[in-house]
C-alpha cells in the first residue's frame, strides 16, 4: 500500500531533524527544572522570576546576589553614598569585558537603564527604575532623555541621583531591569538580539542555545572577570510546566534541581517533609484576596472586616497549600530586618457575625450572592473551595466560585468586574515598599478601587525619610491602615519556596527570602 512508501519517508525526514539538534549532545553538568518557557531573555523586558534567574546568569549588574540572596559587589567593585542617601557613585571593575571582548563601561549601564525607560522599549517593569531622579518624567514623555540623572563621567565611574533616599538601592542594582546590555548588539539586531547567535553579555554564563519549550543551554563565559568563580561548565534550564512531569524528571534523575514549589505536586508535599533533598524556606511573597470596594456589598468596611474575621487561615494552609506556609496577618511577609509588619485581626467568628448583623444581614439573611474570582489552577480552586465553605458555615452567606481562563481573569481584575478576587504578589526587592506601593491611589496594581489619603500621605512621607528606622515606622503605620482598618485586601498566607536537590551531591543552593539562586554558585559538593 501507499502508506508503506510514504510514511517511512516522512519518518526518515523527521529523524533527520531530530538527530541534528542539540539532542545528541551529552548531558549538561547540571540540569534544572526552571518552570515554564522563558517569555524573553532581554533584561529590560523580563517580568517573571524564571526569566530573571537566567538573566542573572547571563548578565552581571553593579551588584549581584550571593547564594544567600545578599547583594554583593558585581560589576562595581566599590561605591560611595552621599550623606543624604540620594547620590550613589559606583566605581566599576577595570577588567570587565563583554562576551565578545568589548570592555564594559559606565556608559553601558546608563544606556541600558535609559533603554528600559524609553517608552519605545515598552518595558513592563520600567516602574522599578523610577527611584532615579527624572526617570518617571522621561518614561511618561514629559522630559527629554537628559533629564534621567544617571551620569558616566568616565568609563569606570557611574553617578546615580535618586529622587528620595532609597536604603535598598544596592539590592535594586542586581534586579533584572537594572542589568546591563551590550549597546552595539541591541542596536544592530533589535528585537532579535537575544538569539544565541547574536547574544552578547557580561555574566558568568553565555547563551549557547535556546530551544522553544525545551531548554536554555548555558555555558561558562571565558570572558567573565572571575572565571575561577564559575563552578560548572554547562547548565541546562528545562522548560516544564506540569508539576507531575517536573517531579518525574527529578525522580528519575533526568533533572538535578527543582527550582520552584510549583514544580512539586502539592499532594505529596507532606510526604516530602523530612526528606534530605527537600528544602523549604519562607519567601517574600503573599497570597491574598482583593475586595472590590467600588460596589456593594464590599464597599462597606464592616462587611470586609466580617469576611476577614470569619476566615480560618490555618485551615487553608494545613489542608490546601501543605508546604508549611505561615498564615498571613499582614501583607508584607516577615524577614526584612528592622521592619515589624503590623498584624491584622485574628480569626473571630462571633465578632464577624456581629459585624454582619450591624451591616443589616443578621445570620447572613438577605446578603446578596457574591463570588470569588480566580484564574483556573489546581491550587487557586482548592483554596477557593475551602474559603467558600468556611464563609458559608461561619456567616451563613452564599458565596459562589467563578473561575476564568487567564486573559479573561486579568481583564476582570483591571475593570473591577468582581466581588472578591484571588491575587498574589512577589516582592521585587527586600523592602515593604514593594508590597505597600501597590495600594497607593491610582496604581495599576491596586485593582480594588480603594483609595485613602492618609495611606498615600504616609507612603510619600516614608519615601522622603532619610532615617531608615523612622521610615519603617511610617510604612508600618501605612500597612496598619491596609490590613487592620480599611481592609481592601485579605492576606491569607505567605509563600514558601521549595527547592529539591540532593545535598550530598550539590551545594551553593541556599534557601532565601527573595528566592535568589545564582547559577554560578551551584556546584558539586565540596569542590
Amino acid at each position: 500500500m501507499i502508506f508503506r512508501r510514504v510514511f517511512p519517508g516522512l519518518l526518515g525526514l523527521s529523524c533527520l531533524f531530530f538527530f541534528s539538534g542539540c539532542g545528541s549532545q551529552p548531558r549538561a553538568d547540571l540540569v534544572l527544572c526552571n518552570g515554564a518557557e522563558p517569555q524573553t531573555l532581554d533584561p529590560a523586558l523580563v517580568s517573571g522570576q524564571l526569566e530573571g534567574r537566567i538573566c542573572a546568569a547571563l548578565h552581571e549588574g553593579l551588584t549581584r546576589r550571593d547564594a544567600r540572596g545578599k547583594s554583593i559587589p558585581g560589576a562595581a567593585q566599590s561605591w560611595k553614598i552621599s550623606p543624604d542617601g540620594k547620590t550613589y557613585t559606583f566605581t566599576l571593575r577595570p577588567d570587565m569585558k563583554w562576551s565578545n571582548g568589548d570592555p564594559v563601561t559606565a556608559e553601558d549601564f546608563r544606556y541600558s537603564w535609559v533603554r528600559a525607560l524609553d517608552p519605545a522599549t515598552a518595558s513592563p517593569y520600567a516602574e522599578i527604575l523610577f527611584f532615579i531622579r527624572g526617570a518617571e518624567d522621561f518614561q511618561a514623555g514629559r522630559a527629554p532623555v537628559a533629564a534621567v540623572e544617571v551620569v558616566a563621567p568616565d568609563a569606570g565611574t557611574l553617578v546615580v541621583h535618586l529622587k528620595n533616599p532609597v536604603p535598598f538601592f544596592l539590592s535594586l542594582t542586581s534586579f533584572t531591569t537594572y542589568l546591563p546590555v551590550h549597546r552595539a548588539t541591541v542596536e544592530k539586531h533589535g528585537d532579535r538580539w537575544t538569539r544565541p547567535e547574536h547574544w552578547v553579555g557580561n555574566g558568568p554564563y553565555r547563551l549557547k542555545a535556546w530551544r522553544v519549550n525545551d531548554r536554555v543551554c548555558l555555558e561558562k563565559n571565558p570572558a567573565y572577570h572571575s572565571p575561577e568563580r564559575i563552578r560548572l561548565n554547562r547548565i541546562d534550564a528545562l522548560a516544564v510546566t506540569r508539576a507531575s512531569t517536573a517531579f518525574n524528571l527529578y525522580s528519575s534523575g533526568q533533572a538535578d534541581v527543582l527550582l520552584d514549589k510549583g514544580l512539586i505536586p502539592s499532594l505529596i508535599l507532606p510526604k516530602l517533609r523530612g526528606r534530605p533533598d527537600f528544602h523549604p524556606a519562607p519567601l517574600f511573597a503573599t497570597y491574598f484576596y482583593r475586595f472590590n470596594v467600588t460596589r456593594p456589598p464590599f464597599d462597606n468596611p464592616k462587611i470586609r472586616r466580617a469576611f476577614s474575621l470569619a476566615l480560618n487561615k490555618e485551615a487553608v494552609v494545613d489542608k490546601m497549600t501543605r508546604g508549611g506556609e505561615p498564615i498571613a496577618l499582614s501583607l508584607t511577609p516577615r524577614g526584612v530586618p528592622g521592619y515589624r509588619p503590623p498584624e491584622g485581626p485574628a480569626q473571630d467568628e462571633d465578632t464577624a457575625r456581629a459585624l454582619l448583623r450591624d451591616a443589616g444581614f443578621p445570620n447572613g439573611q438577605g446578603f446578596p450572592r457574591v463570588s470569588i474570582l480566580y484564574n483556573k489552577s489546581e491550587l487557586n480552586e482548592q483554596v477557593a473551595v475551602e474559603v467558600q465553605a468556611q464563609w458559608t458555615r461561619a456567616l451563613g452567606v452564599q458565596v459562589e466560585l467563578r473561575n476564568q481562563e487567564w486573559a479573561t481573569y486579568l481583564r476582570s481584575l483591571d475593570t473591577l468586574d468582581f466581588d472578591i478576587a484571588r491575587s498574589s504578589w512577589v516582592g521585587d526587592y527586600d523592602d515593604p515598599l514593594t508590597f505597600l506601593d501597590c495600594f497607593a491611589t491610582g496604581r495599576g496594581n491596586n485593582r480594588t478601587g480603594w483609595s485613602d489619603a492618609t495611606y498615600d500621605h504616609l507612603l510619600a512621607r516614608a519615601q522622603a525619610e532619610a532615617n531608615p528606622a523612622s521610615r519603617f515606622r511610617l510604612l508600618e503605620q501605612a500597612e496598619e491602615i491596609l490590613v487592620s482598618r480599611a481592609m481592601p485586601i485579605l492576606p491569607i498566607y505567605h509563600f514558601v519556596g521549595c527547592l529539591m536537590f540532593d545535598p550530598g551531591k550539590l551545594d551553593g543552593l541556599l534557601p532565601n527570602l527573595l528566592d535568589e539562586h545564582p547559577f554560578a554558585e551551584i556546584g558539586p559538593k565540596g569542590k
Partner: protein
Amino acid sequence: MRLSRPAWLILGLLGVLVLAAIFGPVMSPYGVGEVSGNRLAPPDGQHWFGTDLHGRDLLTRLMYGARISLLVGLVGASISLLIGVAYGLVAGYLGGWADILMMRVVDVLYALPRIVLVIVLISLFDLKLKTLLDETFLAPFATHARLLLLFVGLGLVEWLTLARIVRAQVLTIKERPFVLSSRLIGQTTPVILFRQILPQILPIVTTYLTLALPAVILEESFLSFLGLGVQAPLASWGTLLADGASMLNPVATPWWLIVFPAVVLVGCLLLLNLLGDQLRRLDGHAER
C-alpha cells in the same frame, strides 16, 4: 424489531446510571460541595468511594457529575445532530454552487481549532447570559449560565463531520431510481428530503451519535480543565477524572480518586458505544 439479550443488559445498565444521576444525589447523605475534615479517606462503609482532598464524598460527586456529563453529552450531541443532518441534507440535495459554498464553510470551520470558538463564545456571553437570566423567572439557573453556553458551544463545534457524512450519503441516494421517480411524480423537495432520503441515512446517523456522545463528554472535561466549563463545586465525570489524574505521582497516589471516575466514565462510554453497535445490528442495514 426485537432487542437481543445483550442489548437489554446494556439498556439496563445505562438505566441504572440514569437513575443514579436523577435520584442518587437526593438520597445521598452528603452534599456535592460539602467539605469535611475526613480528607483523602480511602473507601470504607461511610464513604463507599472514598473522599477527595476537601473531604467531599466521591460517590455523591460522581452522581452529581453524571447529571452534568450525561446532559452535556445528550444536549451537545443532539444539537450537533440537528445541525449536521439538516446542513448535510440541504447541501447534498441542492448540489451545484450552493453545495460547494456550504461545504467550503464546513472546511473553514473544520480547520479552525475548536478551542478558539469555545473561548470566544463563553468569555463573550458568559456574563451577558447570566445577567439576562437573573432578570427573568429563570433566575435560579443564572449560576449555570456557563454550563448552558458549554452545551451549546460543544454542539456548535461537533456537527461538521456529520454534515460531511450526510451530504456524501445524500449525493449517492438522490440518484437512485426511487428518488428520481418521486421527483417525476411531482413531490416537493421537503417531502423528498424527509420522506425518502432521511430514512435512508438514519443508520449512519445513529452510528455517528454513539461516536459523538463520548467525544462531547471528553471535550467538556478538557474545557473545564482550562477554566471554561463546569464551575466548582459542581463537577462532571471528566473534571473528576482529570482531578484524579493530576494527582498521579510516583510517591503516593490516592487510587480511588482515579479508579472510580475512570470506571464510571469509560464504562458509560463503552456502554453507549456497545448500544450503538446493537442498534446497527438490529437495523440490519449496515451489516447487510
